[in-house]
């Protein structure tokens, strides 16, 4: 699996993502600067966490207009896998590759801690190595992860099995609708989630629950 990590000004999890990808795939990912509109031919594009453009205007709003995102959008429409983590998820909603929006946490605080997640949908290229209903622990670190969408969108996400991860009961850190932590697009080749799977790929730094996401992608893509 060939991969790329996009770096925006004030991305801060790009290295975490690159290290996890190299560890899991055995190949160094391409690192793509936001001002470049060209991305090499890859199977997976990762939009990492951080505070792109200082969260000016709205989280992810400025990044969604950067040259590289036009290419990401084209590739996503062609079926290339796109994984948006934390700020990456915010950018995906601002780009309309995923529906809804991420608002200020209901408790107003920046929440930085491990959270329990339920894997709700194991039928996707991102989650096939998990089992539906399995509980995993990923860290979260965000101030604006409160997922919101209109009722029709929420109904469609539920009915189409597009809620990949939910916060475990009683462990919703941000007030998100339907306890949503991560969602898939209609074609199921784009996943956005607030928690950080790339930070739990090595037992030395606190856990391995994120490995199955990359194993899923490797299995699905080759």
């Amino acid at each position: 699996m060939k991969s790329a990590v996009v770096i925006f000004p004030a991305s801060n999890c790009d290295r975490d993502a690159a290290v996890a990808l190299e560890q899991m795939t055995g190949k160094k990912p391409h690192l793509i600067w936001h001002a470049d509109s060209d991305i090499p031919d890859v199977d997976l594009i990762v939009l990492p966490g951080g505070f792109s453009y200082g969260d000016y205007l709205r989280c992810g709003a400025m990044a969604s207009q950067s040259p590289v995102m036009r290419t990401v959008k084209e590739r996503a429409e062609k079926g290339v896998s796109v994984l948006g983590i934390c700020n990456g998820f915010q950018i995906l909603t601002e780009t309309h590759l995923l529906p809804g929006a991420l608002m200020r946490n209901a408790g107003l605080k920046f929440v930085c801690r491990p959270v329990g997640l339920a894997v709700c949908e194991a039928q996707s290229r991102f989650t096939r190595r998990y089992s539906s209903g399995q509980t995993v622990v990923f860290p979260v670190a965000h101030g604006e992860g409160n997922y919101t969408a209109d009722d029709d969108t929420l109904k469609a996400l539920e009915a189409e099995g597009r809620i990949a991860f939910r916060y475990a009961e009683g462990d919703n850190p941000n007030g998100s609708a339907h306890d949503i932590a991560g969602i898939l697009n209609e074609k199921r080749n784009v996943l956005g989630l607030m928690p950080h799977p790339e930070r739990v790929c090595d037992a030395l730094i606190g856990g391995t629950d994120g490995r199955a996401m990359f194993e899923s992608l490797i299995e699905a893509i080759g």
Partner: protein
Amino acid sequence: MKARVFIRLKNGVLDPQGKAIGKALTGLGFAGIGEVRQGKLIEIELDETDEAAAKTALTEMCEKLLANTVIERYEIELAK
């Protein structure tokens, strides 16, 4: 021409910041504070002199970048 763009959360969208501001005002001793909603004001200077053309451009700016229409609504005001 100068334009002012007001961006507000849509009705029904929870505004935790507004709530916190309301609580803080009550805490400061201001009585009778009802619902507080926080929005944004963006001031833009434009070379355009035609009002209709300016409005069209500003609407496009709002739809493309300034507002997230999933959760926000916008109003455009042109200064004469």
